[in-house]
């Protein structure tokens, strides 16, 4: 059940996630204009900007929650315009949410197991009609295996549990294994979300304000953790963050958005001294909004 996802076709320049010229409009409102981005394995990129700059919108376009009005998104070399989120996820893109969206009534372990299991099925969109029918049949066959509790199914369940337990361990959540997600403290909920995202075996991990609501110490730990995850799981990581310090501390390259437009990109040092960035942050209501956020 854990068949590998489509490998990236060679020649795509190694970009696991690529957005080129992406724009999105809600009615008359331009939420994102000509957004370009490329994430390769081992990258640790930052996406920053004041509130309402379009950061989460960018995430939502990349992950298929919204469809781009213009431009295209490629994941593992595959054009994914028109795909739904779970299909894109199957290509190796996983995310967390700004306002934690765990499966609240499920235990920590089950939260991760959901993600682990969901992998494996090739999605119909990349297949012909015959293969489509095959997948449909296999979907139902899977149910039979579960209903009859076949040995293979049981082994698979054990394997899922093992994988999930390992991820909990990596995120330091083993002691919360059987707790309902909603009963976890805030910081642990954030970590559980990351564990869950890792369960889908992503190539690229998108973290939406992972440090929101954490204190300085926790943030420092998080920075270490994110780096470690990138190396251990061979990921490309894209982080949305409000906390400049955090972003500057870990990200190798940064993209700055304001009013949906990319106003700067480059290494932390370059971005920090960019006039437009300073204006956007200080000239606008950065401090207020930051104070009121999270």
């Amino acid at each position, binding site marked *: 059940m854990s068949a590998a996802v489509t490998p990236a076709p060679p020649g795509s320049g190694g970009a696991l996630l690529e957005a080129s010229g992406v724009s999105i409009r809600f009615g008359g409102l331009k939420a994102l204009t000509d957004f370009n981005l490329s994430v390769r394995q081992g990258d640790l990129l930052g996406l920053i900007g004041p509130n309402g700059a379009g950061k989460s919108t960018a995430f939502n376009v990349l*992950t298929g*929650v919204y469809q781009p009005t213009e431009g295209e998104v490629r994941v593992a070399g595959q054009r994914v315009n028109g795909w*739904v*989120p*779970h299909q894109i*996820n*199957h290509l190796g893109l*996983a*995310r967390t*949410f700004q306002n934690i*969206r*765990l*499966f*609240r*009534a*499920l*235990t920590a372990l*089950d939260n991760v*197991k*959901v*993600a682990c*299991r*969901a*992998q494996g*099925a090739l*999605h119909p969109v990349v297949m012909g009609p015959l293969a489509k029918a095959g997948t449909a049949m296999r*979907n*139902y066959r*899977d*149910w039979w295996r*579960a*209903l009859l*509790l076949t040995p293979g*199914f*049981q082994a*698979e*369940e*054990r394997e*899922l*549990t093992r994988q999930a337990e390992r991820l909990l361990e990596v995120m330091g959540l083993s002691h919360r294994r*059987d707790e*309902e997600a909603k009963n976890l403290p805030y910081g642990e909920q954030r970590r559980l979300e990351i564990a*869950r*995202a890792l*369960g*889908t075996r992503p190539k690229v991990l998108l973290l939406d304000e992972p440090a929101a609501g954490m204190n300085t110490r926790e943030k420092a730990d998080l920075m270490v953790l994110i780096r470690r995850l990138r190396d251990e799981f061979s990921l490309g990581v894209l982080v949305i963050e409000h906390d400049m310090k955090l972003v500057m501390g870990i990200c190798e390259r940064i993209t700055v958005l304001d009013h949906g437009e990319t106003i700067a990109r480059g290494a932390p040092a370059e971005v920090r001294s960019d006039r437009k960035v300073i204006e956007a942050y200080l000239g606008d209501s950065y401090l207020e909004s930051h104070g009121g956020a999270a």
Partner: protein
Amino acid sequence: MAVPGATTLSDETAGRVPPALRGILPVLIAVPVVVLADVLLNTSPFATYLLSVVGVNIILAVSLNIVNGMTGQFSIGHAGFMAVGAYIAGVTSLELKEVALSFLPVAASDQVLFTVALLAGGVAAALCGFLVGLPSLRLRGDYLAIVTLGFGEIIRVVVQNTEAFGRALGLSGIPQYSSVAMVYFWVFLVVLVARRIAGSSHGRSLWAIREDEVAAEAMGVDTTGYKVRAFVISSFFAGIAGGLFAHFVPIINPGSFTFVKSMEIVVMVVLGGLGSSTGAIVAAIFLTLLPEGLRSLFGALGAGGSLAQKVDQIRMPVYGILLVVLMLARPQGLFGTKELWDVLPRWLPRKKKGMS
């Protein structure tokens, strides 16, 4: 552990069980057992009939729970699927009435044909479930609910206008193959299926959809596919329930499958606790026997006077008021999302740790 069927039960969980429920639970179990044992002692046609009705309602409630409880969708057209199963199975049995499998004794041959008819009904209902599940591609929440309701009503109108289905009079003369054993075999099956699903990765995916559809989708769960499959399985069993129903109720009639019937099933599921299979079972038993109990009570109370003549009419208003009172008393349903064994008092045997 929150998820029913998911497997572990630690003592600290038991500690979180609402104390009041722990005290009440034996009552909940005892009441139906007493009533049933009572009628069972003189195994009578009435006991058989009542047991069959209870069984069919359990199948309906547990199967609806797969969609409404586990997946968090909101179907209020379950009676429509039941009708499909009842009519298709009924017509099949009527067609095969004269057929006997020569290599089997008559009784066995009848049961084989009965099973064939049931499966035909179940499959037909499952196909309809697939059709209803498809709009869930685009619809959410109350809009999906109204579509299921609409499908249920359309099915009823179609039946009412089809000569082969006996139109308004209904289909009578269906061989009465059903037995308590057959009904409870299917009860057992649906409960088992519900439990196995709940304990599997499929069940977890359904729960994930119920908890947060956006997050489930982002974690790679094919939410539409799962929703459709939940609908298919659920309506298959509703069709089986309808088929069984058609083989012990002497006549099936469009009036038996209105949206009021759908509502009764929804009530069972919600009262039992959304997502709790055992809760659905207990609620189905309780609500099915309640009107009979009220009938007895009022029969005993109404000695003479004008009220005595009207006693039987008072059952339904009382039923309605009881529903309100019960929901106010326990808004999360009798069991919440927990299963029976999660809330058993300590002195009762408990399920031990671990199934996987």
